[in-house]
């Protein structure tokens, strides 16, 4: 044993390795971080993932396109509707189907609602990561209201599966517009409360400003998208650059900051909630009449070729890369999931900070583990 100790270099002796996860309150799921510490300072973070790897990409190869949609719900379960949309858009583009305007508008409204509820849950859990437990209940309280709207229209609260190739599963509920408008009215009043509880707090500022800085160069090189990337100044909003559904007919601004620290990742998401409400307000009164879906063939076969479709989920750019050989099953499906990419930067930006900061940084990246593992 003496020998062993002597062989270890001084640097290695300093490291105190702890396992964060797979069961840990702040990893938000089964993520395992092997953290090397020197005192309280994080030297190295190695994510160990795969605890809930279900092989969705492999499963997709043996099922049909409409079935894939239900698998995408299970990736980023907080952006379920947007994930559905990615596959649907991909299939519709490949088959060159014209989608009715009504579908486009409803999809956009639903996407933005999904984004708001996802950010609400993120805000709730981020507050909890920083030790403000009350945030959790505030966030969840308001999220329930959106989930109620989903339940009424889609029949399901989280894993909605509302899209299908060619349109929507069903038409919207007659109450939909009223309830969405009510919600927007309510949430416009309640969102400043979030700022009062957390954003304005001195301790919160101390905990988040200048923590986990991600430069623009790194953000692009690591491919960090979504609010996390935009907080660093990486203009990566797919809704803006490559508008899909009804995003080309509305006015909204892309939230961009340059600082790229935890605080601005936080503010970017809060601002996005405001922006999402703006988008919904522009559309909710102008849902055009028409069919809610186009009639598609019972068995959808994509023409041979490769299709890449990007959408903006609540966490960043989701890419669906489908290689089709003309059969009813895809030959290969690849999901470029935003969380998987965002996780890869954790070591880069968390090294040198304290454990408490690691938790804050992890929270500000807003990781959803099933989307990492797929």
């Amino acid at each position: 044993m003496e020998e062993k100790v002597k062989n270890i270099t001084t640097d290695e002796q300093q490291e105190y390795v702890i396992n964060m996860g797979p069961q840990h309150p702040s990893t938000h799921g089964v993520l395992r971080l092997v953290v090397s510490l020197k005192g309280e300072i994080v030297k190295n973070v190695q994510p160990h993932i795969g605890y809930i790897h279900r092989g969705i990409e492999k499963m997709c190869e043996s099922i049909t396109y409409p079935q894939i949609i239900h698998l995408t719900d299970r990736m980023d379960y907080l952006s379920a509707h947007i994930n559905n949309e990615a596959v649907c858009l991909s299939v519709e583009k490949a088959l060159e189907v014209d989608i009715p305007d009504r579908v486009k508008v409803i999809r956009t409204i639903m996407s933005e609602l999904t984004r708001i509820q996802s950010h609400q849950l993120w805000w709730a859990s981020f507050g909890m990561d920083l030790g403000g437990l009350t945030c959790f209940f505030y966030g969840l309280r308001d999220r329930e209201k959106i989930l109620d709207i989903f339940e009424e229209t889609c029949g399901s609260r989280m894993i909605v599966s509302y899209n299908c190739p060619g349109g929507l599963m069903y038409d919207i509920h007659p109450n939909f517009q009223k309830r969405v408008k009510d919600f927007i009215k309510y949430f416009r009043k309640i969102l400043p409360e979030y700022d009062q509880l957390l954003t304005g707090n001195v301790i919160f500022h101390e905990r988040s400003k200048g923590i986990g800085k991600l430069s623009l160069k790194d953000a692009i090189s690591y491919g960090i998208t979504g609010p996390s990337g935009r907080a660093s100044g990486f203009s990566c909003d797919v809704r803006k650059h490559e508008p899909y559904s009804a995003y080309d007919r509305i006015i909204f601004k892309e939230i961009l900051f340059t600082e790229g620290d935890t605080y601005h990742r936080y503010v970017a998401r809060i601002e996005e909630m405001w922006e999402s409400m703006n988008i919904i307000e522009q559309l909710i009164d102008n849902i055009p009449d028409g069919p809610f879906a186009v009639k598609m063939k019972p068995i959808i076969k994509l023409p041979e070729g490769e299709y890449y479709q990007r959408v903006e989920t609540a966490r960043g750019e989701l890419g669906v890369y489908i290689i089709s050989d003309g059969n009813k099953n895809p030959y290969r499906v690849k999901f470029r999931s935003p969380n998987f990419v965002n996780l890869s930067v954790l070591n880069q930006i968390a090294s040198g900070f304290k454990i408490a900061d690691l938790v804050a940084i992890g929270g500000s990246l807003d990781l959803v583990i099933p989307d990492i593992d797929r």
Partner: protein
Amino acid sequence: MDKIQLGEFIKSIDPDLEIKDGKQFTEVLVPSSKLHSLATQLKEKEEAQFDYLFCLSGVDYGHDLGVVYHLRSTIFNHVVVLKTRTSERENPQLDSVSDLWKTADFHEREVYDLLGIKFTNHPDLRRLFLDNSWGFPLRKDYVDDINIVTK
């Protein structure tokens, strides 16, 4: 640059490359030996500046194993798709691009994990999701009688 200009530009880098005008993007079929040098030039040439690797997918083409790189320039907003293949199935090796785009680090580990393609010069090539006792599940010849229902 639009798709045609992009094709011409890539021709100017290396005239031997096979360029395919895909439905969405310009696709370039790169032999695995030229991949790294082409990627470097695409990233660093003033006119191209493909600084954002937004997707890296491993594909099993039946007898070949391949990797598809989706590159975008955040400045010019043009996209190019690089495709490379290796016919070796026992010990497939490709050059890593993780020194150019850091995001490739995780993506290549994923490809190694699911398809078994080894990336040379990768800083930390370990399996990502699965442990060493698994095969490479995204390969078409992967057999798992228990978990995969083929019917």
